[in-house]
Structures are given as structure tokens and as C-alpha cells.
């Protein structure tokens, strides 16, 4: 039976995890490779690294992190952050990433999604969408794409954008609600559902998880096929296994392999 995926996401800056990992005794809580190994052992279904390194010179460090992770963890790995060219994708895949996530580069130039999917296959191109509720004239509301961590408005409708990038070859959508990110009050369910129901590819729900019910809601009400969370796992509040057991009790099909 096909299972729902639980994906922890690590923010990595200059080769270090931005917020240390607290859930097991690690020799070095700031080493993304150690965190990856711990999540692998804990039964995470996939792993996501988001590279928030600001300088171009330090980008090579991430490749080394990816390479060392791929040597130690035999699980799917998605890497995002600063992916702007076909060459960026090539070196990440060569280093051991299975999928790359493209964010602002796809907003500024949609054709990039097509070039990437044609070269590497739809299955490894994830488009990350950061969306925020916007009031429109006449009292209506819609979700629009924001870039630069939610600071810059683009005026692009999130649902239309999702459909467009999928038609260009995106194999998966990583959908983050910028209204909910960091709030711990749960996913933006109407947003998740609206996007998931309008594209044929898997949607990963992200942004706002504060408890385990939220994970269930993202799948059941949001129609996502996978859920991504960071702080509830990193700070040791819940283990991956606790999350999965909770989702099983809610009736969702989960992978509980030893």
C-alpha cells in the first residue's frame, strides 16, 4: 500500500544547521550530515536540505554536505536554496541529491523549469512555492507568490502558477504558506487543498506545524501527499515515530519499517 511521507527539513547555512538539532545526543548538533543520519535512523521518509548560504563562495560547502549525506544515508534527499541554473542542478544531482527544489529562479524565469525537467526528468524537479493571502478589491481574497522569505510580492496567483510550473515539467510542488510559517498554528488548509486539487503531481504541505494533528490535517483536509516540518522535530518535541504513530491512529497509511 502506498504511504504518506513525513519529511523533516533542515536549514543549512555555510555548511551548518541553522538551529541545532536537539532530539538525540549528537556529537555535533550543528552538522547537517549527523542530523541526516539521525533522521534516517528515526524513519524519516525523505530528507530536505534548504541552503540559505548567502555568499556564492560558500556554496561549494553544501555540495560536500550533500556528498557526505549520500554516502551515509540511503534515503531520498531533496536540496533547495539558490538553485538558478541547469549547472547548479547538475552538480547537486552529481553530488548525491535525488531532487532539487527551485524557488525564485522559476518565478523570475518559468522556462527554467522546462529546461531543468527536460534535462533531468520531471521526477527530480520540485518547484517550491511561497504563497501568502492577499486581499483583493471587492473584498475577495487569493494567494499570491512571494519571494525573499515572504517580503517581496509578485502579484502572481499561486494556483495558476502551480498549474503553470507543473505543465512545464515540475514533478512535485513544495507549498509553503508564508502566513503560517513559524506560527505553529497549522498549515493553511484552504491553500493546500486549492493547490493540491488543481495539479496532478504530489504536493508537500509546509509551514505552520505546531502539533501532530496538524500533520493529519495537511493530508486529510489539505489533500497533500506529504508533510514537511522542521521545528517540531528539530527541538525534540516529537520524534518521527511519534508523528507517524499519531497519523496511523488517525487512519492514515504510514511506513513504520524497523
Amino acid at each position, binding site marked *: 500500500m502506498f504511504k504518506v511521507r513525513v519529511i523533516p527539513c533542515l536549514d543549512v547555512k555555510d555548511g551548518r544547521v541553522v538551529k541545532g538539532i536537539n532530539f538525540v545526543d549528537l556529537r555535533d548538533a550543528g552538522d547537517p550530515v549527523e542530523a541526516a543520519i539521525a533522521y*534516517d535512523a528515526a524513519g524519516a521518509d525523505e530528507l530536505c536540505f534548504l541552503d540559505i548560504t548567502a555568499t556564492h563562495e560558500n556554496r561549494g560547502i553544501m555540495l560536500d554536505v550533500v556528498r557526505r549525506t549520500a554516502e551515509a544515508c540511503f534515503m531520498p534527499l531533496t536540496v533547495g536554496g539558490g538553485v538558478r541554473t541547469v549547472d547548479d542542478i547538475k552538480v547537486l544531482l552529481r553530488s548525491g541529491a535525488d531532487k532539487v527544489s527551485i524557488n525564485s529562479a522559476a518565478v523570475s524565469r518559468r522556462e527554467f523549469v522546462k529546461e531543468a525537467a527536460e534535462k533531468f526528468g520531471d*521526477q527530480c524537479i520540485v518547484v517550491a512555492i511561497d504563497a501568502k493571502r492577499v486581499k483583493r478589491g471587492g473584498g475577495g481574497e487569493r494567494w499570491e507568490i512571494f519571494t525573499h522569505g515572504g517580503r517581496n510580492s509578485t502579484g502572481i496567483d499561486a494556483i495558476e502558477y502551480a498549474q503553470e510550473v507543473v505543465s512545464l515539467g515540475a514533478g512535485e510542488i513544495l507549498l509553503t504558506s508564508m502566513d503560517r510559517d513559524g506560527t505553529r498554528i497549522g498549515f493553511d488548509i484552504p491553500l493546500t487543498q486549492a493547490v493540491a486539487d488543481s495539479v496532478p503531481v504530489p504536493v508537500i504541505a509546509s509551514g505552520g506545524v505546531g502539533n501532530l494533528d496538524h500533520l493529519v490535517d495537511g493530508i486529510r483536509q489539505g489533500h497533500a501527499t506529504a508533510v514537511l516540518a522542521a521545528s517540531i522535530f528539530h527541538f525534540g518535541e516529537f520524534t518521527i515515530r511519534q508523528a507517524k504513530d499519531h497519523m496511523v491512529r488517525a487512519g492514515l497509511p504510514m511506513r513504520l519499517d524497523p
Partner: protein
Amino acid sequence: MTVAIIDYGSGNLHSAAKAFERAARGMNVPEKIVVTRDPEVVFRADRVVLPGVGAFADCRKGLDALDGMVEAMTETVRDKARPFFGICVGMQLMATRGKEHVVTDGLDWIGGDVVKITPNEENLKIPHMGWNTLDMVREHPVLERLPLGPKGLHAYFVHSFHLAATSEADVLARADYGGPVTAMVGKDTAIGTQFHPEKSQRFGLALISNFLKWKP
């Protein structure tokens, strides 16, 4: 003993090579894992692995671009009966034809076409991306001691097409994704998995170990 992993410009060879190295380390007879573009190396290898991600036609083109590689694979696997492991599109290439966007000839080691999966449940997305259990169709040494079935271990899939085998005898395992999906094929000394053993954690490593021990 040498295991040749064919590098034809498709996919993440790093993880495949690392997974085979890890599995080989746990064995009595250490296997040498070689990533190669050289048909001579494949011809002399004791086992051959063909990974692959992307589109069928592109992968076929990449394979043909290595002068003499298809011939070396055919001689090593078909004539010298050395064990072969095709992964994902590497498995699909074992088919008669691929029908992804365009019709492309495969190696024709396993009769059948590679066709789009058509899940009959509306909420199931394409690609089939994630973890699924396997239902054994036929026993095989590489599946020995691996818990399969609805309560068994999971394998990691990422694909939109699968190998629809003409002969049921060539199918080793299926997955259910709104209908049956070919998960594993096997014929003579060749096996292939639609899923990624190199990404399937303990299950994948155990399967690779079985393949390395397999003496057909």
C-alpha cells in the same frame, strides 16, 4: 569480483555506487564496485548494474552514445550469463519498447512495453512518488528473507511509466497504486526494479546484498 555500474550520463550514480559499496562491505567476498563508461570493463565484469533516471528515450540515447556498450552488456549478460541489475529506467530499458512520449526500442530482454501508469483512484498523483509495499509474484533468490506483502518492508518509487511485461513469468513483484504496477522483473540472469534500492534504506541494502550473493 567486479561489479560494473554503467555511467551513461543518466542519474545519480553516486548514491547507487555508495549503496553497492555499503552492501559489499558486509560480505565475505569483497566486491569491487566500478563506475564505468568503458565497454571493456563491462565485458570483463562479474556483475553489471544499469541505473537510470529521466525519460526512456534520453536514457536509450545516452546508452547508445557509448560505443560498443549495448554489445558489451548483451554479451556479458546474455551470452556469459553474468548477473545484471537494472534500476528504474535501467530496468525499463530491459523491455522491448518504451512508449514515453515517443516509441523507442529497448534491449528486448523482457518482452513488453513501458507504458504510462493509470491509477484508477482520482486522488492518486502521478508520478508515483514515495514508499510502497511489494507483493511477490514469483520467488527469486534476490528476494530471499525479505519481508514482502502488505505488512512487509517498503521500497521507494519515483516514476510515471512502468514495464507491462508480456509474460507473467517475467514479473517478480508488483506494487499497488490504484491498480497493479510492475515493481520487479526477472529473467535468466537479469533482474530489474522499478523502485530505487539505493534509496530504500535497509530494505534496499538487503536486496542489493542478495543480488551480490546471487549465483545463478
